Every structure is written in C-alpha cells, then in structure tokens.
C-alpha cells in the first residue's frame, strides 16, 4: 500500500464550506487505489482498501438495506440546507421542531437508518434493529470483515476504539467487533459536514454498495477526492469536513463506527 503525504492545508477556505455541496473542482487529486493518506498535520486522514469486501457480502447488504425508508429530517447540514422549523402549523406559526424543512424534504430522495446501538438520549438498541433484525444479523460476516480490516491496517487506533467499547460492556458491541453502530444512507449525496456522534480520535469504516457512478468523497481541507466503489472499504476520520460528489444510479453507503458516548452511560 502506498503512503500519500499531503502537503497543503486549505483549512481557512474549507471552514466556510459547511453545508455546501462538493464540486469536482474542489479536489486536485483523486485517489482510487489502496493508499494510506497522511494529512499535512501528520495525522492519518484515511486509508482506502480497494476490493477488500467480498462481492457476495456487499451485494447481500444492498438487498437487505434497500427497503430503508427513514427521512433525513435531522441532517440539515448534510442535506445541504439550513436548520429551519420543519413546517408551519395551521395557524401560520412555525412548528417547534427544527431540522430539514418539509419543502426541502420533498425534493430530497435520500433515506437513512441506524442499526445496532445508539448512545443518545440514552443507550439503547435502535428501533430499526428491533423492527428489522435481519438488516443487522444477516450482515454479521460483513461487519466482522470490516472490523478485521480495521484491526489489520490501523492496529493502534483499533485498539483504542476497542478499549473504549469494552468499557461499555459486551451488550453494546456488534458481536466481538470495535463497532457499536451502523449508519446506513440510501441515495444520500451529502453536502460538506462532520459526523458528531462518532467516537473522537479513531476511525469510521465506510463502505458503499449498489450500482452507481460518481459519489466520490471529497475532503476539501486537503483538496482530495476518494473514488471508492462497491467492495472498497474506507477507514477515515469523520471529524474531517467531508461530502459527496453527485452520482447516478442506486447507492447505499454504510458507516461502521463506535458511538461517541456509548461507554459513558452517565452522559
């Protein structure tokens, strides 16, 4: 695997891009094969492992996750919109709930779902997992492979994540892995955002599946695009601003991660 040492940091310009959609011109380098990407500050930004997931596993995942129907109403920044009152009440007053406005939701095709365990407002198994346990259970092998690839390629970060999750106890882990949760995004082309609910200082494993072209992950701070395709696994720090380029086709992406406060039930 090649190691790519990035030299230029576009931090100032990138901070103004939150909630904006990525454009192909935002990246001067596209990475599409095995690489360990080191940011100019010396931190590991991402590790791309191409063709690391057996086809039968990510194809099965695609079929199992296709029925997902959760609206993306709580992800205003990633949708590329403002957090506004969701709608107007009959008397013309705004609804108290804010997030993605209904008019915006009407034009957004994206759907989402969370499998496994969440830490907020309190630790629990997600509703989707209870409702459709097969979405998680039938993907056990896939999750274990993603876990093994993480452990093999970034053992020191993996050890940190696993230690944190071990504190939470075995009931909050996805089998013996270092993941507590799987976030699934269906046909979700995201604007620049960061993921706040993930454990800090470690990696999230991203895996796209489906039949699509495009959807490269752009990290504007480093002006790079990561062209990952079904079967690839991307280990990446989701605290970095990131978003996707437009795509055509059917795409589902899964993020395997450790929920930020899963080990701390007092928070």
């Amino acid at each position, binding site marked *: 695997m090649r190691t790519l040492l990035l030299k230029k940091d*576009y931090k100032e310009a990138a901070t103004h891009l939150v909630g904006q*959609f990525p*454009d192909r011109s935002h990246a001067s380098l596209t990475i599409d094969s095995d690489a360990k990407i080191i940011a*100019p500050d*010396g931190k*590991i930004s991402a590790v791309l492992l191409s063709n690391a997931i057996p086809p039968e596993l990510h194809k099965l995942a695609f079929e199992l996750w296709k029925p997902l129907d959760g609206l993306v109403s709580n992800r205003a920044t990633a949708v590329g*919109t403002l957090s*506004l009152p969701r709608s107007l009440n009959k008397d013309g007053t705004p609804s108290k709930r804010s997030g993605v406005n209904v008019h915006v939701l009407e034009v957004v095709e994206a759907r989402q779902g969370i499998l496994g365990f969440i830490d907020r407002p309190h630790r629990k198994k997600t509703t989707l997992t209870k409702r459709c346990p097969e979405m998680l259970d039938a993907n056990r092998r896939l999750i274990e492979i993603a876990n093994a690839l993480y452990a093999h390629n970034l053992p*020191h970060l993996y050890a940190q994540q696993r230690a944190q999750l071990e504190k939470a106890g075995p009931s909050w882990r996805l089998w013996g892995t270092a993941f507590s949760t799987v976030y699934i995004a269906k046909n979700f082309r995201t604007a620049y955002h960061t993921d706040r609910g993930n454990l800090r200082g470690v990696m999230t494993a991203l895996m796209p599946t489906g039949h699509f072209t495009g959807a490269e992950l752009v990290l504007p701070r480093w002006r790079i695009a990561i062209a990952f395709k079904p079967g690839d696994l991307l280990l990446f720090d989701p605290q970095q601003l990131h978003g996707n380029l437009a795509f055509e086709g059917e795409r589902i992406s899964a993020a395997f991660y450790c929920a930020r406060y899963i080990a701390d039930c007092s928070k």
Partner: protein
Amino acid sequence: MKKKNNLSIHPIKLAVRSCPPDRAQKGRRRAAALKLEQAKAEQLSALEAKAFLWIARGRSANIELGRVFLQIKDIVGHGRWEHYYGERFGSCGIAKRTAQTYMDLARKEDASKTAESALFPPAMDTQAVKTRDVTAKAEAEVGDVPRPNPNPVRLKVIFELPLLMSVDDQTAAKELLSSPNWASAQQEIITFLKQLYIKFGIVDEEAK
C-alpha cells in the same frame, strides 16, 4: 499380578493423558505468540503515526523558519542578505541554499493562501441548485417567524472537582479561594483544564 497389571496400565493412561497437555501447551504458546505479534503491530502502527506527526511538524517548522528569514531579508536588504546570513546563521548547520528553499516554501504557501477561496466555487449540478432554491423558498416562508436560537446560552454552574490533596494544599487552596485573586486563578484553572481536554483527546484542538 493384578497390581502389576494395574501399574503397567497406568503409564499408558498417563501417556494418553499427556497428549492434551502438549496440545494445550502448543496452543498456549501459539496464543502467546499471536498476542506478542498483535502488540508489536499495535506498537509499530502507533510509532509510524508518531513519525508522521514529527515529519509534518518538521515541514511546518521549515516553512515558519522560511517566513522569518524573509522578514529578516526585508530588513537587512537584498544586497546584504547573503553576507548577513553567513555571519549570523552560517554556523547553525543550515546551508544558505537550504534557507533559500525554506523561504521559497514560505512564499509559495502564503501566495496560495490568498487565492484559496477561489478554489472552492459553489457546486452547480442539478441537486445542488435545486436544494439551494428550495431552501431559499422555505427560509422565506418561515423567515419572519422568530426561530429558536441555534446556540442557546449554556448556564454556568459551580462544578466541584474531586481532587485528592494534602491538608496543607487544601488550606492554601481555601486561602486562594477567599482571596481577591480567585477570579483570575479560576480562569487559569479553566484554561489548564481545557489544555488537558485536548491532551487527553476529549475535545480536539479545533473545537477548543
């Protein structure tokens, strides 16, 4: 005879039994070797990560040094720079040509910074434009309506820190607490705690 037989059978039984401990021992050895390998891999991976951090620091130090040299060169003047450099910094182990490279790096870095925002034009694909339009309409619809503050003020409360201190330290702390300097001391403690949050990875540096 019976006894003898019994005795003669016994070692065979022992021999049969001695197999599993052998296998178990091998298994244990293999597990220990695996654990050692894993520990080595973790250590190597952590050290590599540390090396990359220092490489990055070295590069940013070189650029910063280049910036300082550029400022000095501005003051001493282009004609006197080479002589000045040799006299002041010649013995520091950084060749004049290397200093020049650092200055070029700094120049390039600063020049590209000014043009950075032009590198990120707004996306003009269908979805981006459509989302922006609908957002503008939705905002206009709820625009006059007072919206909840996205950054509500968080109330400050007294937070008790459980510190294990000697009696002398506790007495001194109490004295500080009742002194007029407590306000600034409190601020310093909070600042120090913030540094610890970063050090121990509770918050990242950008979020401070």
